[in-house]
């Protein structure tokens, strides 16, 4: 309704849903409106009617540049976009090459794209000697964190909050008063040893006062309740046994990171 005392200016329009103007309806420079669909039309220089605006958020105006592709305008803002078209093959997201290559290709597979923000990584090492009892599997204490990108490492325990497959690495330096007779390093999952996790054990040592053991594993962790720890034991001649703090040659350390999502 026009304001009183003023003459309204109205475009050529229709209120019929899905109705579009024909080329014959428009002259060069004329606009047409479908106020039911919320679309604005014009006739291009070739005489073809084009849609230049739509109230539908999903309908993006296509650029005429590019080959075989839809090219968006510079820095478009798209909310909840849905890519349509072929249901096979792959979708390629490409950005202008500003410094080397910057192309991301998504394969035709279901999964989660992993970036640094959702791939936890941690590293820690021991800062105090431990004196375990002989023949006793003892949790190794890693008192200092080097990094813990997702705050998933605490009390010498790694409890990732993102489900996935994790590569873990650990080493433990041990000794006995005179000779070590046996020692081992093991990963514990959820408080117990796991037959699928690699370990290292030496039980036929002779004349050795020091030993550094190491192990690594690839393990699935559910991102909520699963956790990993490192245990070790040492048996030897003498009254004292040690799990050494890290120094230049005896590293007692624990590290890991996600290698793929669940």
């Amino acid at each position, binding site marked *: 309704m026009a304001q009183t005392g003023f003459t309204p200016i109205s475009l050529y329009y229709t209120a019929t849903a899905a109705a579009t103007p024909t080329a014959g309806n428009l002259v060069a420079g004329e606009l047409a409106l479908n106020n039911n669909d919320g679309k604005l039309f014009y006739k291009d220089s070739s005489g073809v009617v084009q849609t230049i605006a739509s109230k539908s958020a999903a309908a993006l105006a296509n650029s005429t540049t590019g080959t075989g592709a839809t090219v968006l305008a510079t820095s478009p803002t798209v909310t909840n976009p849905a890519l349509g078209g072929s249901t096979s093959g792959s979708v390629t997201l490409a950005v202008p090459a500003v410094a080397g290559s910057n192309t991301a290709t998504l394969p035709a597979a279901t999964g989660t794209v992993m970036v640094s923000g959702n791939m936890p990584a941690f590293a820690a090492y021991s800062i105090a000697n431990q004196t375990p009892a002989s023949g006793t599997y003892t949790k190794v204490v890693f008192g200092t964190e080097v990094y813990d990108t997702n705050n998933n490492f605490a009390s010498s325990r790694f409890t990732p909050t993102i489900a996935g497959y994790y590569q873990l690495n650990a080493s433990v330096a041990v000794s006995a008063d005179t000779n070590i007779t046996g020692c*081992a390093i093991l990963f514990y999952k959820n408080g117990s040893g796991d037959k699928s996790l690699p370990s290292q054990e030496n039980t036929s040592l002779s004349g050795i006062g020091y030993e550094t053991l190491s192990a690594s594993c690839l393990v699935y962790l559910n991102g909520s309740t699963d956790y990993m720890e490192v245990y070790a034991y040492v048996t030897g001649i003498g009254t004292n046994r040690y799990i050494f703090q890290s120094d230049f040659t005896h590293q007692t350390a624990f590290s890991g990171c996600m290698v793929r999502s669940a």
Partner: protein
Amino acid sequence: MLYDKIKSIYPELTDADFVGRNATITLQNDSDGKGDYIKNWSHPTLAKPTNEELA
């Protein structure tokens, strides 16, 4: 030490009973201040010591 107490009760036990692939007794310490404890006891002939024996 729990290991020493068990060895004093059963002097015939060796390290091989506690560690290694043929171990039948598992002692564990979770480094939580609660000390050593028997995680598993499946020795074929020797009975698990009672708390009184280990006290």
